[in-house]
Structures are given as C-alpha cells and as structure tokens.
C-alpha cells in the first residue's frame, strides 16, 4: 500500500513538472488538436450541396425575430395572440364544465346524501367543502391550461425561446445578470420549480443565485390561469362585453411584462447589493427552426403539463376546500373563525388596497398558487352572507353571468383597485411550496431560500401599498 501511494505521489509530481515544461498554452493546444482532427474527419465524410435556399430562410427569419426594431414588438404580439386565444377560447368549455359539475352533478350528490340521511356536517365537509373546491378548480383551470400549454409548447418546439433570450440578453447584462437567465426565465413561465432547476446551466454561482431568486417573477403555470381569471372577472367585466376579451388580454400582458421588469430590477438591485460581481460572457446557440410536430406536441403538452398541473391543483384544492368549509362553519361565541380572521386582516388589507378575505385566502392557499381565486370567491360569499348564490356558508358557487359576479363583488366591497392589486399581489408574493423546496435543494442554503421567499412578499406589499395610495389620491 505504501509503495502504491509513493508511486501516486511520484506520478503527481511528474505531472506538475511536465505542466511547467509544456507551458500555459497546453489547454489551447489540446483544443486545437481536437479541432484539427474533427475538421479532417469531417472533410472526408461530409458532402455539402448547394443549400442557400433553406439556409437563407432561417437567416431571414432570425433577422426579423431578433431585430432591434421588431424583436420586442413581435415578442409582445406573439404573447398577446396566445393569451387572447386562451381567454376567448376558454369561455365556452369553462361554462360547459361548470354547468356539468356544479349544475348537474352537485345537486344530484346533495339529493343522494339527504336521501341517505348523512349527517349535516359530513355532507357539508365533503360536498360543500371538498367537492365544490375540486369542481371549481377543474372548471376554471382546465380549459385555459388545455389551450395555453399546447400553444406555448408549439412555440418552444419551433425554436422561438432562444430568440427571446437573444433579444433580452443585452438587458440582462445591463442589470448585472447572466444572459442565460433569459432562458431560465422563460422556463419559469412554464413552472418556477423547473426554472430554478434549469439555472444549473449558469456556471457562475453569483449569477445563478440571481436567476434563482428572480425566477418567481415569471408568471408560472399556476398563475397564468389565475391572472387570466382575475382579468376576465374584475377588469374585463368593467367594459362592454365586446371589449372584455381585449381588455383582459392587455391586463394579463401588462402583468407578465411587469414581471419581466421586476426580474431586471431585482437582478440589478441584487448585483449591486448582496451579490456584487462581474458579468460573465457566454455563447448562445440559436438552434435551427424546426417545424413542430403538431399532434405529438398537443398530446405531450396535454399529458406532461396540463394533467400534471391540474392534478397538483386538485390535490391542494381538496384539503383547502375542507379548511374553508370548517373555518366558515365552526363558530366561536356566535361568529365563525373565518369572520374573526377576516376582520383581523381587514385593516392591513385595506392599507395595501386588498381586503381581509383576500389575505385569508392567501394564507389558506399557501401550498398552491392556483387555488387562490376560488378560495377568495368562496370566502367572499361565506363572509358577506350572500344567500342567493351557492348553498350557504363556505360553499363555492358558480359564476355564470357577469351581473352576478359584479353583484357579489360590490357586496364584498370590491373596486377596480382591488382587482388590480389582486393581480399585482398574485405576481409579487412568495413562490409556491414546491418551488421553495426546490430552491433549498439547489442552493443548500436557508439564507438564500429565505431571501427568495420573503423578498417578493415585501415587494408585493410595497407595490400594492403604493398603488392603493395613488389610486385613492387620484380617484
């Protein structure tokens, strides 16, 4: 054994001796050697015919999509078209699912349970709590996701995302972050947890941390439908029906771009305070455009993304439904737990242009962003004792007409400000529990996990507060 370790030491000292002898350009020489071999082998095996036509088409497309003048407008346009198709297209299947799950199945189950003589609180917990929450989540989330994800995946397969990265590279550099962050940011539009894992492509630990912390500002799977829903109900409902699609699309795009702005702003802030350092350079490969394989893409994006995200939402919605029903129905000296919590949070809620109901909904829905809106509406109905919707306290209800929605919102004291701030707060708050866990796994640091969790909440509260004050001064 000693003999062996002696040999190893000898080997290592010989290696370092030789390193000195060869000189510092060894790495370059080795690389050059590999390149020379690759070139000579290629020359023997490759036959290139005239390929100008297809080559030129790709170059032309790149010139337009990554041009200084048209790059950003085209990006906005493409995103707008996708969102508009999602918002417009989701209406019809949503109301169909709604009338099926809530209009037909729910009364049937209620009848069944009363015939069987099931105790009121079991009936309430199971049907008015859990079933309602799950049905609501399916009805409002499945249609927009089933339209949005395939469209987004088609765009990804075509090869557009790296062009987005190319367009944004300069801005990232200016804010002191790595250009590849544009890619992880786009991944975050799918799922923040996936975006955080994707930051492994960034070599520098400093820039990687920036990318991890700011990934939450990319609206994710869970929050796209939420944003679309808030925009449709609270912003779109304010204008004549013909305009509502356009107006709500604009609102959602506004929020998405605001997210990009916050990504840059936070990167800039971090790289000048907590995470100072040099910007590293990298080469970004623009892959060839590939015609996506339409049906396969539709199929895999439905299986991979839609069903997985929906399932996650259902898993979190079921217990949340139970909690909502319980806090609305367990009374302490005459009032429900929800009543006390909402009153307790109301003052602070008012300060930041929200209300106690919304804040309580965020607390209940901490594990998953996607069920915040159903929770908000359920609690609103329960708290303000709106009797002509749903079946009573803590029961989720079905919103099939805009006047009904507006009525509920007015009863709940909602204004345009509440809608706007709800959208802002949905963009700027802590990441979901899965993402927080992923951040810890990637950074192995409680400190940075806490920063990534708390920083967005602080920003959300500050932004909502400022918007509320401004709104109250102006209106």
């Amino acid at each position, binding site marked *: 054994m000693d003999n062996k370790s002696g*040999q190893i030491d000898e080997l290592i000292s010989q290696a370092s001796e030789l390193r000195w002898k060869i000189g510092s350009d*060894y790495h370059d020489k*080795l690389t050059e*050697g590999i390149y020379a071999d690759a070139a000579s082998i290629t020359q023997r*095996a*490759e*036959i290139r015919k005239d390929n100008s036509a297809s080559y030129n088409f790709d170059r032309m497309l790149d010139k337009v999509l990554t041009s200084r003048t048209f790059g950003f407008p085209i990006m906005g346009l493409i995103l707008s078209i996708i969102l508009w198709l999602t918002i417009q297209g989701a209406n019809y299947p949503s109301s169909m699912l709604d009338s099926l799950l809530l209009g037909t199945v729910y009364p049937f189950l209620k009848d069944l349970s009363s015939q069987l003589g099931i105790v009121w609180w079991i009936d309430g917990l199971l049907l008015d709590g859990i079933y309602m929450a799950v049905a609501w989540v399916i009805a409002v989330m499945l249609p927009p996701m089933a339209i949005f994800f395939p469209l987004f995946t088609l765009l990804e397969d075509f090869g557009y*995302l790296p062009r987005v990265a190319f367009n944004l590279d300069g801005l990232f550099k200016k804010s002191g972050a790595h250009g590849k962050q544009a890619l992880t940011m786009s991944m975050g539009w799918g799922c923040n947890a996936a975006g955080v894992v994707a930051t*492994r492509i960034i070599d520098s630990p400093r820039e990687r941390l920036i990318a991890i912390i700011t990934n939450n500002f990319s609206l994710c799977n869970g929050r796209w439908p939420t944003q679309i829903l808030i925009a449709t109900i609270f912003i779109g409902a304010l204008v004549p029906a013909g305009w509502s699609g356009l107006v709500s699309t604009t609102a959602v795009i506004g929020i998405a771009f605001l997210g990009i702005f916050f990504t840059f702003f936070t990167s800039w802030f971090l790289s000048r305070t907590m995470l100072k350092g040099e910007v590293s350079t990298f080469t970004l490969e623009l892959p060839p455009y590939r015609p996506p*394989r339409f049906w396969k893409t539709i199929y895999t994006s439905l299986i991979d993304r839609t069903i997985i995200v929906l399932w996650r939402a259902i898993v979190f919605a079921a217990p949340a439904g139970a909690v909502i029903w319980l806090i609305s129905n367990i009374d302490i000296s005459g009032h429900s737990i929800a009543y006390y919590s909402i009153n307790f949070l109301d003052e602070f809620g008012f300060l930041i242009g929200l209300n106690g109901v919304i804040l309580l909904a965020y607390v209940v829905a901490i594990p998953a962003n996607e069920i915040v809106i159903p929770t908000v509406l359920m609690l609103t109905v329960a708290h303000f004792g709106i009797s002509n919707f749903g079946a009573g306290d803590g029961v989720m209800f079905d919103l099939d007409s805009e006047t009904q929605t507006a009525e509920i919102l007015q009863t709940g004291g909602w204004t345009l400000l509440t809608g706007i701030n709800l959208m802002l707060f949905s963009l700027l708050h802590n990441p979901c529990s899965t993402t927080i866990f992923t951040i810890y796994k990637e950074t192995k640091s409680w400190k940075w996990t806490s920063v990534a969790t708390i920083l967005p909440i602080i920003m959300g509260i500050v932004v909502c507060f400022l918007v509320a004050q401004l709104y109250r001064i102006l209106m």
Partner: protein
Amino acid sequence: MEEVNKGCEDCAFYNAAELKKLGISVENADYVIALAGNPNTGKSTVFNALTGLRQHTGNWAGKTVTRAEGGFKYNDKRYKLIDLPGTYSLLSTSEDEEVARNTILFGRPDVTVVVADASRLERNLNLVLQVLEITDKAVLCLNLMDEAKRHGIEIDDRTLAKDLGIPVVVTSARSNEGIPELIQTISQVASGEIVCKPHRIKSLPKKVEQAVQSLSKKINGLYPELPNTRWIAMRLLDGDQQILSAIKSGDFISSGNGQ
C-alpha cells in the same frame, strides 16, 4: 421457409419487435448505456424513443440539466439508459459538463452513445473525439438526418465509422427512423460482438504527445485495468483537481456512478 426465417433474424426490424420499453423501471440492468451529445441534438428524443418515456423535449440548447434515467429490454437483456446533459466538451468545469464527464468516467457505462447533429458534424465531432478518449465502447448516433438533408448535407457514414473506429447509426429520432438499427448496434457493442477501435487524438504537438505518453504509462502501471489512461494523463496536464483526487483515492476502481 427456414431460409427466409434466418434472413429475418439478422434484420434489425425483426429484432426490434423484441424491444420492450421499460419506462423508469431500471433495476437489475444487464447493461448501462449513457447518452451523451451536444446540446439540442435530440438526445431526449432518442431517449424517449428507446425507453417509451416522455421526458420533455424542447428546441433549445441546455434543456436537460439533470440526468434522466430509463430502461428498455431487448433480446432478454435489460438496459438502463442515462440521458446526460448536453455539452460541447468535457474539458470545462460547469456543473452540466461535470455530470456528463463523471458519469462516463467514473460510472463506466457499458456503451456510450453519442448523439450528434448531422448538419453540424464538425462541431459535434469535438465532443465525440473527447468521449472516445475516455471510453472504448461507443456508438455514434447521427441524428437529425432529415434536417441535414433539408440543408443539402449528405454524410458518408461508412467513411465516418471507419475514421472514428466505432459504429455509426443514421437516425431521424423524431420520426423513429433508424431507432431499431441503433438498438441492435447498442446491444452488439454491449455484448462485445462489435469491438471498437476508437480514434485517438492525433494532431497534438510533439512535446504534448510525449508528455501524455509518459504519464499515461505511469498511470497504467498503477491502475492496469483502466481503459483511458491517455485521457487521464491529458487531464492531469491540465491540472484537473477532481481527476487528481480521484487518482489519490482510486475512485476509478470503485466506479461510483458519477454524482
């Protein structure tokens, strides 16, 4: 009739019927196969075609940053497939390149399949040549042939196979073309039916070549069962800390699996 059947047994398509995709069940594998390649060459598509899994694919460089694993069964042998992150080389120290490098070096897969973009052969060969320094048992999967044709590029795969000293299989994994042949070739290399004589980097300056050779001999004396002493010598000359500590601890022998 018998004659006909015999013909069939040699045919890759007949044998592909014996393929059983095992998804993520990879226990008790007879052979471990690593899938390496440049970013965005369709590694994940090849991976999915072989395992029946639906690892998300996307048209951008650097999509796969972790190792994905899957399995398939072919002619009664179980294969475990590891999809490595796409890298341009194995010479730097970013996390994705280290995952790829360590799996091939320390994990010692039975076959390393390098997936290359047929329309960007020269650049892809840089990685192929580095892989061939580390392992003897490799297959080149020349993917995206449909796209190469669209760009007016043809590749003489026989000459390429001869020059590289490993089997070359031409595929268009998106439409499953060439996958049966790839599976058969993998099994032949794994079982030793095909023996590779991999190309070793030739165009090194004399001084470097001599240094590599003398170190390589020493390493061979210490660890005679190592197939890649030349490559380890090259890394030592570059001052690679991880290789240095592996030499000290003898990690090559225990062959942990890279992570």
